[in-house]
């Protein structure tokens, strides 16, 4: 008890130089040699990995040829002596076959594990939940927006076909006190909740906003962040460029746009605009009226976070340059933007209306001083990373664009490390 084991230093030059890069560690047991082993993976550069294994009792790391070939989620879980991670750089839909990356400590290699066929919601919002070890078995917890929880447990690990069994747990409704005492039937009628939500996902925004009036339960589902996530993922046919972190979504409100002063470019999926003097995002997700193909409705998500007014001369600047701002990530009153026209990166401070060009470097002290602490900044960078990744996947016609963005990211990452 309480024993501490110091891991040996790496002898590999790669690990010495890149100690600050993203890395993952996992521990497991090799029953063929009765030894404990530790595996670690580092992302050297985009989609390039280096893997080392350390056997407890020895004093070195061994480099091995197998690597995860995808970004892993932060928390891995050990089960059956092996380590398991969810992959985290997901595209729009679950790719069932390549969802779980596991490290086999006996063979010292990575392998894929099939994801169970969740009853529905085969898109990314349901994969934010971690893998767990449930009484020795690998398990997946899928928290659904209507206060139910599915748990999928792997039944047989050794068989080539992985079987999953499913449990559904009805959670106590906490965010909706007025309905907690009532039975389910009054809330949903006699419909299974997943069918009701499935119907919601197929309704236009306008109908959903009207049906908030049906009951308190419906209102709380439609307003929930997890439903917003699902709805977005389910409705968009193409990958979204913009990734707005869920913690921001709470602050957004859907409004039908009265009159746009300026809209950047409706062909873009998401654009930053100035609306009645404040900052807003047009989301083309709901721009299109599906019935009348020739007619567009403008839907705007208004910023409710410390609404700041961009000075008129700034607006003129954005307008005159035909700038389209993409890849928005924000925290507190600061937003991080990428300007596709100038290929520049900017931080816009909504309180002071100060727009700072950060193409060259981000002064770390700037981020230490203001509202942004290290953690929130990391969140910004994370959300930014994701949006850039999706942008890369999107196949931007401008090849330099991707590299440029990527270089910027590297800088951002190193700045973060310096904090």
């Amino acid at each position, binding site marked *: 008890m309480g024993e501490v084991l110091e891991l040996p230093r790496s002898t590999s030059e790669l690990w010495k130089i890149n100690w600050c890069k993203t890395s993952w560690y996992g521990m497991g047991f090799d029953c063929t040699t009765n030894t404990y082993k530790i595996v670690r993976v580092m992302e050297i550069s985009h989609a390039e990995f280096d893997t080392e294994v350390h056997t407890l009792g020895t004093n070195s790391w061994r480099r091995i040829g197998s690597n995860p070939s995808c970004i892993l989620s932060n928390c891995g879980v050990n089960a059956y002596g092996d380590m398991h991670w969810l992959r985290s750089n997901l595209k729009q839909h679950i790719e069932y076959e390549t969802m779980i990356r596991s490290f086999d400590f006996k063979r010292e290699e990575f392998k894929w594990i099939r994801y169970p066929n969740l009853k529905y919601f085969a898109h990314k919002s349901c994969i934010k939940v971690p893998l767990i070890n449930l009484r020795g078995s690998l398990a997946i917890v899928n928290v659904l927006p209507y206060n139910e929880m599915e748990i999928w447990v792997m039944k047989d690990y050794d068989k080539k076909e992985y079987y999953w069994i499913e449990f559904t747990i009805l959670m106590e409704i906490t965010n909706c006190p*007025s*309905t907690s005492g*009532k039975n389910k*039937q*009054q*809330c*949903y*009628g*006699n*419909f*299974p909740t997943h*069918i*009701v939500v*499935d*119907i919601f996902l*197929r*309704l*236009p925004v*306008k*109908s959903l*906003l*009207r*049906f*908030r*009036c*049906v*009951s*308190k*339960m*419906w*209102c709380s589902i439609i307003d929930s962040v997890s439903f917003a996530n699902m709805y977005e993922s389910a409705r968009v046919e193409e990958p979204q460029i913009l990734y707005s972190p869920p913690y921001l979504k709470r602050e957004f409100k*859907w409004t*039908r746009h009265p009159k746009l002063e300026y809209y950047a470019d409706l062909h873009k999926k998401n654009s930053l605009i100035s609306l009645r003097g404040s900052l807003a995002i047009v989301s083309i997700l709901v721009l299109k009226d599906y019935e009348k193909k020739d007619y567009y409705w403008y839907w705007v998500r208004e910023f409710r976070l410390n609404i700041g007014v961009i000075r008129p001369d700034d607006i003129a600047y954005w307008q005159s340059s035909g700038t389209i701002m993409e890849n928005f990530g924000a925290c507190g009153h600061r937003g991080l933007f990428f300007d596709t026209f100038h290929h520049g990166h900017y931080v816009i401070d909504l309180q002071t209306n100060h727009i700072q060009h950060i193409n060259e470097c981000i002064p770390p002290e700037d981020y230490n001083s203001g509202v942004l602490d290290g953690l929130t900044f990391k969140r910004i960078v994370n959300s930014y990373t994701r949006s850039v990744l999706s942008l890369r996947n999107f196949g931007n016609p401008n090849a330099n664009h991707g590299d440029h963005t990527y270089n910027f990211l590297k800088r951002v990452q190193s700045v973060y490390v310096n904090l």
Partner: protein
Amino acid sequence: MSKLGQAKRIIFLKTADGQLFEVDEPVAMEFEIVKSFFDENEDAADDTVVPLPNVSAEPLAGIIEFCKAHVEFRANGAAGKDEVKKFNAEYIKEKSNEQLKELILAANYLNIKEMLDFLTETIANRLKNKSVEYVRAFFGIENDFTPQEEEAVRKEYEWAFEGVDED
């Protein structure tokens, strides 16, 4: 599987109201619940009757009709073509809301993904331009808002109440 070789296998299904259905194997295997019944009981006799305690005869007959047609479409390589759309439209046209609800509950119990998708889409289409009252009646939901609360929620997105169909 059957030692009779080429003979078409028939699956027997018994509904909650005691009716016995004889269904061709490929059609019955569309029902995930029936499929897993036979996966778990590999040595089940050919004349095993699968009990379906949550489904009554009327929706089951409707579901079999739908699945049979879709199994044939797939066999003919017609899946996803206009022919299928036409069949689906005809199939659902005469169905009342009550029948539709029974169908979706049964399809959910039997776990037939393709049919569930089709039925949820149909319900969403039927409901999208309807009033709040219509939707409450459809799902049998009790309004738990006070009139003042409901008015307040309504006010938030008043424009969403424009252009609603007559019930």
